[in-house]
């Protein structure tokens, strides 16, 4: 392996994020407690610089660099933009929130940057091992962030559950990778693609390896039956972190899943496509149906996020350029709308009031019209009602499915989406159609408002003028 300085330039965004994170840790030591927000603003700055860097290389396709473990292509660029966006919004949402929770510490933002770099590596990884390293970097940072409210039992419990189950699932994934290596003699994705082509799809050992990979990745995107951690972790984690992990890491996992399954394992798709199809059906069903009975909004959104993972998995089933682009677009859209809804939940958290019960939103529109309208937009978008972005996302998934001939699957998906509409519009009902039962005191801050404005703008803009975003996704697919 020769050391090529140009390669170092190409991975500059990753280097910026990591070194930025390290510098901020040092800076944190010299800052007073009431100056911690400086770290937040600097992390935003780091993210913007890295995003500018990624944008600069957007036209490039580096091929496989760094020992063929890494690539800078349109696909990774698109996903990195999603990660920057979700981290940026999550930092904005955190600034006031962690002060309210009383856990304002510099490491918080540093860990987010570490998680961001992990996600970036996952999107760019072209080797099962580099993907795994990225995934662990991301996951470990988020385990810590989940338990960040040390004095809160729920937060600790969530972190504990997450770390144990996460470690277990990482083990399963790693075992799958080792099986793949044992069968094919490689973990490099394009070599793997050639190898499995020769292996044939009926090879039982390969099928076993695939099952392990599905389980490992399935855990990360909370696909049923590997979803049990999600509701507890979503509920216990700091809300800003729940928001973050419901979009960023999920998108990163999908970035890796698409590359591994449609890229490397594409030639043997017959051996996994039915498995994924079944998984997506139960994921949509469990997510949509269990969400109906939730009373805690974070738990409900956990199940909603499970259901959305089910829709995204359908894109994997559909495959082809449209399947890939559909999932990419879906992840971008989901980032906007989910960040938006969590942003409004964070507004409720003030003083000792948690504002996590769905009932807490009763009558919000009487008191605060703007926030109510934003929630309306995000909730209808999550339900997939036009003219919001959520509809465009689902529409593209259905289109990809039907193009590949999976009409019955599309029918199941729309039925699930109609079921899930119920729990979103139930919140709209509470906000708009009931009288308020208490005083509302929202924790507004400029940073939070900015995040909500970005999220709302994205949700509406993609809903009405999706062409540009769609073409971005379509031109950024990897050759699968």
């Amino acid at each position, binding site marked *: 392996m020769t050391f090529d300085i140009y390669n170092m330039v190409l991975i500059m965004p990753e280097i910026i994020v990591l070194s930025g994170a390290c510098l901020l840790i040092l800076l944190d030591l010299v800052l007073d407690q009431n100056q911690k927000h400086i770290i937040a603003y600097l992390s935003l700055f780091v993210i913007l610089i890295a995003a500018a860097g990624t944008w600069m290389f957007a036209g490039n396709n580096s091929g496989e660099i760094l020992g063929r473990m890494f690539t800078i292509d349109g696909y990774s660029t698109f996903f990195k933009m999603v990660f920057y966006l979700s981290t940026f919004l999550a930092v904005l949402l955190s600034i006031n929130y962690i002060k309210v929770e009383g856990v304002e510490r510099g490491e918080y933002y540093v860990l987010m940057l570490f998680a961001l770099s992990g996600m970036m590596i996952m999107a760019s990884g072209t080797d099962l091992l580099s993907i795994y390293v990225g995934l662990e970097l991301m996951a470990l940072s988020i385990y810590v962030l989940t338990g960040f409210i040390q004095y809160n039992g729920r937060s600790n419990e969530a972190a504990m559950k997450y770390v144990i189950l996460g470690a277990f699932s990482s083990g399963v994934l790693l075992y799958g990778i080792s099986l793949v290596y044992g069968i094919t003699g490689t973990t490099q994705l394009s070599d793997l693609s050639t190898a499995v082509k020769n292996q044939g799809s009926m090879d039982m050992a390969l099928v076993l390896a695939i099952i392990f990979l599905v389980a490992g990745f399935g855990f990360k995107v909370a696909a049923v039956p590997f979803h049990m951690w999600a509701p507890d972790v979503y509920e216990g984690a700091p809300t800003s972190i729940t928001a973050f992990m419901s979009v960023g890491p999920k998108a990163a996992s999908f970035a890796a899943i698409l590359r591994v399954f449609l890229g490397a394992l594409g030639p043997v798709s017959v051996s996994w496509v039915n498995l994924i199809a079944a998984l997506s059906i139960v994921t949509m069903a469990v997510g949509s149906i269990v969400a109906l009975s939730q009373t805690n909004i974070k738990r409900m959104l956990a199940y909603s996020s499970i259901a959305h993972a089910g829709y995204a998995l359908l894109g994997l089933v559909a495959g082809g350029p449209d399947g890939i682009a559909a999932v990419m677009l879906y992840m971008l859209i989901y980032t906007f709308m989910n960040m938006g809804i969590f942003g409004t939940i964070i507004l409720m958290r003030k003083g000792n009031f948690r504002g996590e019960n769905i009932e807490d939103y009763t009558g919000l*529109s*009487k008191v605060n*019209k703007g926030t109510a309208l934003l929630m*309306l937009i995000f909730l*209808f978008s999550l339900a997939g*009602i*036009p*003219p919001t972005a959520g*509809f465009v996302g689902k*529409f593209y998934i*259905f*289109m990809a499915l*039907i*193009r590949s001939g999976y*009409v019955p699957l*599309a*029918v199941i998906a*729309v*039925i699930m*989406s*109609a079921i899930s*509409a*119920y729990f979103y*519009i*139930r919140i*709209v*009902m509470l906000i*708009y*159609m009931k009288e308020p039962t208490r005083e509302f005191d929202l924790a507004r801050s400029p940073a939070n408002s900015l995040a909500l404005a970005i999220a709302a703008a994205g949700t509406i803009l993609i809903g009405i*003028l*999706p*062409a540009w975003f*769609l*073409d971005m996704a*379509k031109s950024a697919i990897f050759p699968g």
Partner: protein
Amino acid sequence: MIEAVHNSLGIPILSIVTFLPLAGAAVLLFVRNAGLVRWIALAVTVADFIVSIPILLNFDRTTYHMQFVEHYQWIPSWNITYFMGVDGISVLFVFLSALLGWICVVASWKAIEQRVKEFMIALLVMQTAMIGVFCALDFFLFYLFWEAMLIPMYLIIGVWGGKNRIYAAFKFFLYTLAGSIFMLIGIIVLYFAGGETFDIIALMHQKFSLPVQLWVFLAFFLAFAIKVPMFPFHTWLPDAHVEAPTAGSIILAGILLKMGTYGLLRFPMALFPYATSYYAIPIIVLSVIAIIYGGFLALAQTDIKKLIAYSSISHMGFVTLGLFVLNATGIEGGILQMLNHGITTGALFLCIGVIYERTHTRELAAYGGLAKAVPIYTTFLAIFVLSSLAIPGTNSFIGELLIITGAFGFNKVFAGLSIIGAMLGAVYLLGMYKKIALGEITNPHIREAWDVDGREIAAMAVLALFVFWIGLNSAPFLDIMHVSVNHLIEQMNTVNGYYATIN
């Protein structure tokens, strides 16, 4: 498929008529005073109505081609365009929507006291979506308007409705959503079957394979049948009607239900002529059931709004009957009856709203002797009741006559059965009128009731004008749709001829 542009006024008039209310809604966001909000909403809807008049006046009755067409790129990689245009069928409903728009504002003038601004915004957004549905010639655009309607309507019923409003709002939302998601799948299937296009006109020239026709027809049928609503998908309607505020009921009865029948006519019938004749008999049976069953249900009601709601089911049964007898007389009658029902039932809901503001009850038993207390109001009520039961000289007579004539041309049994429904209509409507208007005043609220004011008279008089205009001289209205309907039938015959040769 590029078609010659017919009849352009030089301005994008359909976009103006569609999006003017939305622009008005955007302005309202920044207005705080409730009184000012009302006046702006009225000004916007009246302006919208005025804009819709030249569309009707300049409409070229000699061609079936789409007129006032606007066609722009929108989402090129999905081949989706912003494609608007009207033909002789849709132009009537654009006009009807614009007409009922300001009447809804008038009807809500005093009835809505809480959150006036939000209500008017919802109403205006609704107006944009409704007119958009009738103008859209691209399936994606159509679906966007179609579904977007759910949001304001959900709020209108749920926020400003009656006691049981939340249940009704949910029922309305979920029913409609359940229907339209299957249509969404149908639209995407058509996209691939018809050469990757959402262009409705281009798709109408395609010949789809039999399985596609039969299945996608059902998907569309479900969506539209729920909206109409046809028996047995009608159960959401009485709840929604009863709980909705007056303006909501007017929109529901006047326009939303028409969207179902308009949709049936424009999409399944025009796109899948073979499937249409294949399913015609079962659909006609459902229509006849709706006519009779709806009539009996209306007979049993004690709540005025519910009575009119069930009568709508019966009347809409006539419309679907007319459409699916598949001859020109029936279809023209069906379209005219859609217009008539929009005007008459819209007017009846307006009447109910007006009197409810005064008496705060909708129970038939609480009424009696209204004619003595509020004579002008009762006169208007009489006009609309008579129109609803299709007395000669009123609009519905022409419509029902054409439908029944068309039905006799198709099958005498169904035609005969549908007359039972028409007779039932006379029974429950006259019965209702008797209980409300005649007899002695027993309820002190009625004695205190004040007669209609200028703004209410204006709204009712305009609607009454159309009742008699169509009733006495329906030719101008039938002329507008004539060429388009004939073209539709011609198209169905050609395509069915084609299938007859290959089978």
